[in-house]
């Protein structure tokens, strides 16, 4: 290769006709002309431009489709986040859920708490407590009426809509009905907090709030509330509360619109026979009643 520059000019087609004539006489031309000429006769497979373009469009379309198939990690993370939220919240909902015990009309039930404290629920009542946390915190909420026999131990707390009762180890009854809140202490000492005021009850005492009027009554008989022996006892309680209790024990609807429901009743009624129960409430107050299925109407007894 003597004159590279000339060779390149030749291959690049830059030579004039004259120059080319001169170049053809050189050794370079002799050496390379055949290579250059024969190489130019090689071919690359031809391309049909239209077919190729159509093929390109098809590939582009396929690519669009394929894009959709790509794994959607965003969705995966969303699903994972939702799952975590579900697991965590279900832990709080199901594992920290409080245990609830409920009674219906004319039903009582006895429940043992995790520390073997005993709760006897009167009709239409409900307690709720957290079984898991019970060891650290003996605390429950009460709606209605219940008798508690508390095993000695740490502070035992009963929360009601009316007030709180704190004890260490004792037996007591709590009755929390509409316009009626009553705590009776049968053993030990009970601290009742009502309206931010703490009252200590000792054995045989009871504290009650009727229609917002609080009073402390001394001298209780027995070692457990009478309702546990299928009887409800009242000392100077307004008739409306007594009627409500009869309704709870017998599943009756009592119409007392014709009588004075604020009259005070002292006495008791049995839970076993509704006629005897109704009589024992109405007769002392000079009332009578008519019974029709589960409907009872009270009226003033006029005699014949």
């Amino acid at each position, binding site marked *: *290769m003597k004159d*590279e520059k000339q*060779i*390149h000019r030749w*291959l*690049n*087609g830059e030579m004039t006709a004259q120059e080319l004539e001169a170049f053809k006489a050189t050794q370079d031309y*002799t*050496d*390379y*002309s*055949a*290579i*250059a*000429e*024969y*190489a*130019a*006769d*090689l*071919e*690359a*497979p*031809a*391309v049909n*431009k239209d077919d*190729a*373009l159509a*093929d*390109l469009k098809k*590939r*582009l379309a396929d*690519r669009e489709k394929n894009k959709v198939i790509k794994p959607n990690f965003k969705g995966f993370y969303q699903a994972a986040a939702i799952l975590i939220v579900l697991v965590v919240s279900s832990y709080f909902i199901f594992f920290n859920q409080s245990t609830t015990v409920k009674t219906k009309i004319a039903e009582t039930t006895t429940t043992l708490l995790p520390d073997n404290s005993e709760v006897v629920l009167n009709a239409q009542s409900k307690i709720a407590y957290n079984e898991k946390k019970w060891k650290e915190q003996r605390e429950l909420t009460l709606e209605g009426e219940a008798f508690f026999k508390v095993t000695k131990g740490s502070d035992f707390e009963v929360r009601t809509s009316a007030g709180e009762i704190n004890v260490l180890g004792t037996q007591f009854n709590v009755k929390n009905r509409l316009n009626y809140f009553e705590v009776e202490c049968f053993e030990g000492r009970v601290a009742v907090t009502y309206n931010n005021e703490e009252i200590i009850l000792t054995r045989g005492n009871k504290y009650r709030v009727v229609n917002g009027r609080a009073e402390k009554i001394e001298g209780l008989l027995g070692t457990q509330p009478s309702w546990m022996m299928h009887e409800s006892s009242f000392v100077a309680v307004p008739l409306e509360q007594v009627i409500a209790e009869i309704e709870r024990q017998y599943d009756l609807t009592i119409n007392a619109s014709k009588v004075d429901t604020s009259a005070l009743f002292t006495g008791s009624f049995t839970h076993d026979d509704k006629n005897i129960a109704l009589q024992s409430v109405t007769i002392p107050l000079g009332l009578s009643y008519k019974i029709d299925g589960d409907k009872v109407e009270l009226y003033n007894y006029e005699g014949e």
Partner: protein
Amino acid sequence: MKKDLQQNLCDEASFNGFYTSYITNAKNFAYYKCGDSDNALDLAQEAFIKIWENCGKIDFTKAKTYLFTTINNLFLNKVKHQKVVLNYKNEYQGPDKTNLSPEFVLEEKEFKTKLQNAIADLTDGQREVFLLNRIDGKKYREIAEMLDISVKAVEKRMSGALKILKEKIPTL
């Protein structure tokens, strides 16, 4: 004019124009690299797809360079290297058509086979430059622009190619 085209590279009609202008060059270039027609078309098509997908980002004046660079990169990434043996267009009779002795025909045949093999033995760089010049009739300047290299580099590859070919092939 160029500016219009640049703005329109995302426009289907002007992209199609760009495609039709360069598909042959692109495919041939890929073919000189990989030596397989189907693979070559795949490479070229993929490079065009990349241009279409990035049409907004590519300067039109650079689109041609981008096309060949992309083919080169795709080739390096995926295509298995194989021997690049090209076929002859027709039974070309050589520069001197009067010299048709049986002896010459035999020599010519031998020469042509040796040339095919020798071209296959060139480096990729040498081969693609040499064939772009010889088959596609590209000027050095055009090749330099396509491959994004200097004209000097093209000359160097051509010289290298010629030297190797000369060594391996007896003078006809």
